[in-house]
């Protein structure tokens, strides 16, 4: 397999061989598939909305909290964890994102004071449901040893 990496600023572009459907068969093509981002801190991507108090407290503890806004899913590889708060994505997007993180062993954290996706409980390294304050929540995340 050939893998070419080109650089532009802090971003790296990866060219990969890939299979693409053609008629009833498949063709091998080479495409520029993904962008690799370069981060320095302990990055946690979050989906949904986190209250400001939670963002501030996370920042104090040194977590680089970045909102994942349905960009290229491979950006998650550069995060130490994926935090799901109140989700605002459609089912397919949600499962694609969660499955991707699970496949790459990226710890997934569920955090919502409302409800919980019971059938996907196995996905989460940490799930916090109900009333919890910011300090207590981030202490639990810290204890994960990301």
């Amino acid at each position, binding site marked *: 397999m050939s893998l070419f990496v080109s650089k532009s600023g802090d971003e790296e572009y990866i060219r*990969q061989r890939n299979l693409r459907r053609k008629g009833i068969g*498949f063709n091998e093509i080479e495409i520029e598939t993904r962008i690799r981002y370069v981060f320095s801190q302990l990055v946690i991507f979050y989906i949904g909305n986190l209250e400001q108090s939670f963002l501030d407290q996370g920042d104090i503890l040194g977590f680089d909290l970045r909102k994942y806004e349905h960009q290229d899913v491979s950006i998650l590889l550069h995060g130490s964890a994926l935090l799901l708060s109140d989700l605002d994505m459609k089912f397919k997007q949600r499962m694609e994102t969660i499955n991707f993180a*699970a496949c790459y062993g990226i710890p997934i954290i569920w955090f919502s*004071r*409302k*409800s919980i996706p019971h059938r996907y409980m*196995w996905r*989460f390294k940490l799930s916090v449901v109900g009333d919890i304050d910011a300090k207590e929540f981030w202490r639990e995340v810290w204890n994960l040893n990301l």
Partner: protein
Amino acid sequence: MESESVAVVFMNGLGNFIFFTAALKVLKQRGYDITLITNDKFLSSPALREVSKGIFKEITFEYDPNEYSQTFIGSWGIPAFMKDYAIHLNPRFSTINWTNSGIHEVQHYLDTIGASWEDYDGYIFDPIETSFQADPYKTTIVLSSCAVKNIFLKLNAGDKLKKRWNYFPELSRQLIDLGYEVVLIGISDEMDNCEGINFIDKLSVRETGDVISKCDLLIAPSTANTIVADAVGTPVLLLEGPMQTARAHPINVPFSVVRNYISCAPCFQKATWKLCKDPVCMSNIKVGDVLIKMHKFLQKPMSSKHIYRPIIFPEESLMKTDKKVVYLTSCFNRYHILKTFLTSFEKSNPPDGKIIFLNDASQDPRIQDLLDDFSMPNIEKEVLVRDKLEKMQTFSEYKVNPSIHAFNHLLKKLSAEVVDGFFFDYVLFIDPDIVMKINWVHKMIKLYEELSLELKIGMVTPFNTDHLEYDVDGVSETLRSEVGSYRLREGSNLPYMISCEILMKVHKTFSLFGHKSMDIGKSEEIFSQGYQTLVTVPSLVEHYGAYGNTFLATKPVITSLDYYEGWNINE
């Protein structure tokens, strides 16, 4: 007393079977005698024979529905002859799409028997003691080939090659150089030239379990041995290429994943899986990647943790009403959720009236006990039990509108009561997967009485989508945006409330109820007569999302409770 005899249907490999034992364990705890319906390949596998020993009352290759009180059949991993039964019972029966579902295989099996993750209590797997003793002064790493002894599906032989990792010999040497003790298990030439204590092709499955349990870490591609490690409590480092980690990762023990990014992986059971002749996803994983991940993982293995803090709603003075309310609730399994629901219902200050439960053929015997024990001084209770109309329980999610059938059943019961002179003002349809705020019913009644003077309101729902969405499994898209948006189910939005007047006006007579697909509360008829739904914002209930799918329906009236903050609630 003789135990109830149930049948389970299963046909698959060793790893799948160990996952399946999670569901079998729950059935055993419920006191059932279990018969396995499978095909002849099951018994041709020594590994499966060994692991399944003592679990089943009987293993048969034929199915007679009259022999069992219930039959559990999943939508995946079943013999061909059983598919006919499943499709006959449920035309929407389909195989599960692991790529999109994101459901763990254990969860799938638990769903099949009507259990949830709260019921999970590990696997049934007993290792056999061997003479192997790990060096107490060293960290012992066990390496396993992707091929595992006695896999019974022939097609696996070729497919296994795609999970094959060719760097085990180099990894074993590096590990020994670094001071680790190395143990080798599995079969095939994948482990040729490896260094370490050699158990290649020498152990049975249960003996392998014993060896793995005595080691500190298993390094292997996703295979039956990783699931054995999960069963015996040894952490796992997964070398992942084509496999769906989300579907089959360990759930009891800490695990980590080594996977190099390639956009076509994971491809297991996709079209590219069959066509792939050069699994670069596996060959891309280098020894250095494994060692780095292993050191990191051994320092800080990560276990799962779940914290549940009950939601505490702000306290309010209790509202009063002289209206009489009938609560209709249909329950199907989910013991833990029902328990929370009943506690919440008691605390929510429901107006006087009557609650009618329907135990909708739950497979979990605890549901009936819970309903029987429930009591409130101001509310009359009645528990209906629906017999298991279909002895064979297909994967419940794919049943056609079971909730609607259940509510129609409840309405029929209510109609019988009305004929006998029973009187009520409002009827509330509730799925038992919610937690209610205090005074929720009073507020709905008050809103309705105030707004129905000006607007043509047919039903009131206390739930809207400023909540997390329902647990939708690929059936429809979820509507969700800012507070004030809404989503309705089958023209309605459980839970909802209808006044007796509207119900009588729309139905004319209760005897018209049938078992059509969409006549829950005849909601579509209510809308067709120009009535609208009143949705409260914010919601008066918190929703767990244990049941059901959602569909877009008519345009509702949306009202904000903020407007009513100045209410004199005791007025």
